[in-house]
């Protein structure tokens, strides 16, 4: 079982292509808190606390494809 680092911040970056091995999540699959975070971070140079149901490297389909970076 993989453990997550606590206290990480995530940001969204637009991605032009989706790797075949990426985990892709549609906005509608996300928990309400993650939906709020994605809508807030998309196309903005902001960070938010990492969501429980999103991981570094995930791709989210919102108004475009966004890759999650969590550090």
């Amino acid at each position: 079982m993989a453990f997550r680092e606590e206290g990480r911040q995530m940001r969204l970056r637009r991605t032009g292509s989706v790797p075949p091995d990426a985990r892709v999540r549609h906005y509608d699959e996300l928990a309400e808190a993650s939906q709020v975070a994605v809508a807030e971070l998309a196309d903005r140079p902001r960070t938010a606390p990492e969501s429980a149901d999103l991981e570094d490297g995930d791709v989210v389909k919102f108004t475009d494809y966004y890759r999650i970076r969590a550090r």
Partner: protein
Amino acid sequence: MSDSYVIVGDGIAGASAAETLREEAPDAEITVITEEGESLYNRILIKEFAKGKLPEAPISIHDESWYDDHDVDLRLNTLVVDVDVENDAIRTHEGETIEYDSLLLAIGGTPQQLPVENADAEGVHHFWTFQDARKIKESVEDADRGVIVGAGLLGIDFAAICGAQDVEAKYLMRGDSWWRYALSNEGAEIMHEAMRERGVEPVFGSGVDHFEVDDDGHVEAAVDPNGERYECDFAGVAIGLDFNTEILEDTPLETDDGIVVDEYMRTNVDNVFAAGDITEFYDTILGERAQNGAWGSAKEQGTIAAHNMIDHGSEPFEWVSSYSITHFDFPFLSFGHPTLGDDSVEATTDEGEWRRVALKDGRVIGGVLIGDLSPQSAFKQLMREKRDVSGQRELLMEPGFSVDDLVASTEH
């Protein structure tokens, strides 16, 4: 002897039930039956595949090894032809009888066909399964001109697919706007403009009277009730679903448009449950029966059904659903029951930003947000808390609205 659970349907409702049952009942026998030829995939991403934006691989959720690893007996390509609730058994198209202690029906629906001439012609597509998406992608990639029918949440996927695949399309609508049951003309016009920007032209006061086909039986035009002819080599039809209740006709299970269940997802037969978009469930927030086809709702229903199959009454289904459209460069979100209610309030809050909230007996029961999704949590909270917002409805339209903006005494 361990309990045996049979789940019919391997969409997100059936699969989440299987996952929950395995977690909660490690020794149980679990069988999942699906008429599809592939195991659980992401039904809300197949439109992205059809648009040519996403490869196949990320769309799969459970490969067949998942079922082996979790000791779940998966039966692909298996049609259930009879449900015998007196003898706690189902029968498959191959004549096999499978007995159960508890049964979950997550059997979904089938897209409706237009009741017009040549509605089943080559090139006329309906969109529900991954296999449908593959055929649509193949067909639309070779198409130059398209016609779309069905002015709702599923029809707009066809519009987006045509737009993404550079197919010039006419979107034939019977009324004067898209999704007229949930949006006013002002809100709908934002969506119309987004369609036009992608080469999809909404045509109002239209529809399809019949399709014309070429010598090979392939669609070549749609003719609307006004006699207007729209040439096309691709047609997408999304006018609704017929829920798959026909196998229950000779059973005592209560059905209407779907399978009637209580808030615990149980039917009127004690050991038969249902989940997903086929249910007509008692919505504890709305206070009446409702249906919902959203992914999150179906997943939650599957989980809740599983809990109650093990211990009935242990957990009710209380959920505010939402459904987004992510085809455009602005977000769109509908939540709750935006087409119901006895009152509504709407506003344009900024350029390209519009919202509408549906009310019933002074309470929020649903709505639509275009452009600015920031109030979604506040509106969902009001729904869950069943707050009476009578006399304060205009506050809901304020940019930056927060639940704290309402007078506290209205809380029930």
